[in-house]
């Protein structure tokens, strides 16, 4: 082993927000050339710590050393100069700028005083090639996928020649494929001599790529362990402070009547491109149907069409035999559909409203929350407190603005709201995105409870783990249609992955066999 060379030392960092201590004397030391994972529950203070390192927050106590030298990182400029780059949890991208514009911002190449975009774009393309990032320098951010945006964020740091990279939950909204790519990229970066701090809630990722893990809990440092000497179970209990069950326990399904019936559905996206192309789907009471697929194969359009947020072109959707095609969202929810939307900030919540109002967002107009058009805010408070209690939403109270809650707690509030309406069909789109293992466990249990009480559940997820664990049936969506339906017990992740790539089950079997042969040969 080389002598321990720390490129970053954050010693006894303390950060307070008002009276709240977000970081309570946390120490984190990053070695050169390592991938160092930072683990903690939602709201544990990970992002805060990293924002301190990046100069966005000024700590109240502690010291930071970079390559052994004590530094004061007063703003991101200083961090940049020290070779620290950060990929933020919430992307820091200007949506209506191109990739190149985002990357060069603040460090623009010029020719005769004007922006030299073509030179910059060339450099971006080169960098992109060097690290296998595959990014179109001229694409607009708003037009590219989340995975691509992620890579733009990485390019931003590379463009500035960052040697120390902070990734704050980079995989939360990536598809499995994209995650694989990202891991490859990270390994490449390490080979180049860079060092990485990685925040993620996915323990498997930590096990796969990291060298060491620092765990924090409720703002306090718990300790640092060497990954290879630990296990997911140990990490989870370190972080939560109790035992965590990974594989959600559930009994067999007993499906009965059909609740959701989608027939030959065709839906176009906002640019009028057909995204759902003659899709058929059926979900029955007492079962969880998981939709597996790569992002962009029509999942969003399908859900939006079912829930009334988007008009369909042809085909039909019915709930309990009642046609709800092209009905307004209110009529759809009233026919017994609950919906945990994919984007909690865009569709799920009115962030400026108190969390209590948000919990009432679907039922505020009904008894007992209102009568004759007059809202009973006391009733709303009572209702909200009840959900908050029941769904373990961690907040200062029903009157706290939704904005101030952490993502996990926002999500729990949404789930509480939708489940409590007792819908016959619960649509859960990416319900655990960005959540810690504890929260994920909680949400999965709720979905299964719904099923067991005789409701139909439709789960959309990009995480194969989740789909495999929670669903009773898996419908694979590809290019706007369900190409196959499989049972979790009768398949594996590999087969599923191939199906999602558009291969038929036969092809998949053949390919799997072949691959197996290859392995033997090797």
């Amino acid at each position, binding site marked *: 082993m080389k002598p321990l060379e720390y490129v970053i030392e954050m010693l006894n960092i303390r950060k307070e927000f008002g009276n709240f201590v977000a970081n309570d004397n946390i120490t984190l030391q990053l070695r050169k050339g390592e991938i160092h994972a930072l683990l903690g529950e939602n709201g544990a203070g990970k992002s805060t710590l990293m924002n301190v390192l990046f100069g*966005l927050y000024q700590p109240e106590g502690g010291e930071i050393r970079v390559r052994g030298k004590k530094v004061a990182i007063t703003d991101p400029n200083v961090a940049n100069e020290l070779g620290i780059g950060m990929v933020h949890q919430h992307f*820091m991208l200007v949506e209506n700028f191109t990739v190149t514009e985002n990357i*060069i*911002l603040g460090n*623009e190449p010029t020719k005769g005083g004007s922006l030299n975009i073509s030179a910059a774009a060339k450099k971006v393309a080169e960098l992109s090639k060097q690290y296998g990032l595959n990014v179109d320098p001229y694409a607009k951010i708003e037009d590219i996928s989340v995975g691509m945006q992620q890579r733009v964020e990485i390019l931003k740091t590379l463009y500035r020649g960052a040697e120390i990279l902070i990734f704050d939950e980079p995989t939360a909204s990536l598809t499995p494929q994209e995650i694989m790519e990202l891991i490859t990229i990270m390994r490449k970066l390490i080979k180049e001599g860079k060092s990485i701090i990685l925040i993620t809630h996915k323990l498997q990722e930590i096990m796969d790529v990291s060298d060491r893990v620092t765990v924090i809990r409720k703002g306090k440092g718990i300790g640092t362990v060497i990954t290879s000497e630990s296990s997911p179970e140990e990490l989870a209990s370190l972080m939560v402070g109790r035992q965590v069950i990974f594989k959600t326990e559930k009994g067999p399904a007993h499906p009965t009547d059909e609740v959701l019936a989608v027939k030959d559905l065709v839906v176009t996206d906002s640019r009028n491109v057909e995204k759902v192309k003659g899709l058929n789907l059926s979900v029955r009471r007492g079962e969880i149907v998981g939709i597996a697929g790569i992002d962009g194969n029509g999942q969003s359009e399908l859900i939006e069409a079912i829930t009334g947020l988007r008009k369909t072109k042809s085909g039909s959707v019915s709930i309990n035999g009642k046609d709800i095609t092209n009905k307004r969202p209110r009529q759809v929810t009233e026919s017994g559909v609950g919906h945990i939307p994919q984007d909690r900030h865009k569709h799920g919540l009115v962030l400026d409203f108190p969390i209590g109002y948000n919990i009432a967002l679907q039922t505020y107009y009904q008894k007992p929350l209102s009568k004759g058009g007059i809202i009973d805010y006391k009733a709303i408070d009572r209702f909200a407190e009840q959900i908050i209690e029941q769904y373990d939403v961690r907040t200062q109270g029903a009157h706290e603005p939704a904005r101030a809650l952490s993502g996990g707690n926002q999500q729990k509030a949404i789930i509480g709201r939708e489940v409590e309406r007792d819908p016959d069909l619960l649509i859960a789109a990416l319900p655990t995105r960005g959540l810690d293992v504890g929260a994920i466990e909680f949400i999965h249990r709720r979905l299964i409870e719904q099923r067991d009480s005789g409701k139909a559940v439709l789960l959309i997820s990009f995480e194969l783990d989740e789909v495999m664990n929670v669903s009773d049936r898996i419908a694979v969506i590809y290019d706007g249609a369900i190409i196959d339906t499989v049972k979790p017990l009768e398949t594996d992740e590999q087969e599923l992955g191939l199906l999602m790539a558009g291969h038929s089950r036969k092809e998949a079997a053949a390919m799997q066999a072949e691959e197996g042969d290859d392995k033997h040969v090797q």
Partner: protein
Amino acid sequence: MSFLEILYFMAPVSIAYAAPLIFTALGGVFSERSGVVNIALEGLMVMGAFIGILFNLFFYDTFGSWTPWVALIAAMIVSAVFSLLHAVASITFRADQVVSGVAINMLGLAVALFLTKMIFDKGQTDFIKKAIPNFNIPVLQDIPVIGPMLFKGVYGSSILAIVAAFVAWYVIFKTPFGLRLRSVGEHPMAADTMGIHVNRIRYIAVVISGALAGIGGAIYSQTMTRDFGHATINGQGFMALAAMIFGKWHPIGAMGAAIFFGFAQALAVVGPSIPIIKEIPTGYLHALPYILTILALAGFIGKATGPKASGKPYIKGSR
């Protein structure tokens, strides 16, 4: 008037009317692109109109026929300084940008009128001796049709305004400063993480808007009224604001919108010699330019959304 005569009349008039609006609207574009709502354009224009006249009156002997141009610079500087108030309030003190703007509007008019009274001992200034001149552009004016439309009776200030629109376009879309300006108005936190000083950029943008609105005001007073009084600028700042939105926060768009306003105003004036418009009773004819604008918006302009972070002070570490 024949159709051609109407065209020959309307084209230069539209552009002349538009020039002050173009400058002021460009100011609005800079400010709002950086995320600072600038409803203070009216007050900044008032200041510019006042300073333009004041300077012209006092320095005519020094600068002779160059006076109106130097006066533009004076107005530009004073309005820029005046706009610092709006900047301090809405950037540093996190004031509601609309309230601050309203206050600046009231303050601008009150201060300008008060100084007028103090200096001239009456409600309006004297008349300037030298206004911004207009001239025919040699050679070009002889081009058939286009010549008399665009190159006769042209004000230097109109040329300046059109040039300014293109320069603004260049600055905003082609330079590093412009890129930073826009990033700060769209996603200040992203800009911050890239090491851009959000508030500094916003200060610069607001001051530029003050400078441009100052020029706009001084052009107006030095071409239209030739003196300054309580009614010299009345609503032009708001029309410039409208032009900015109409033009979708784009310099060239704003210029187009301002010229459209000029066109609509001119149309109302020549109305009595145009067949259909002739039938509109005068009282209602005065409303025509504004109705035309609404129709144009509804007809072919449509959706316009401003910079995303517009109106919100940037507070580090909040989300």
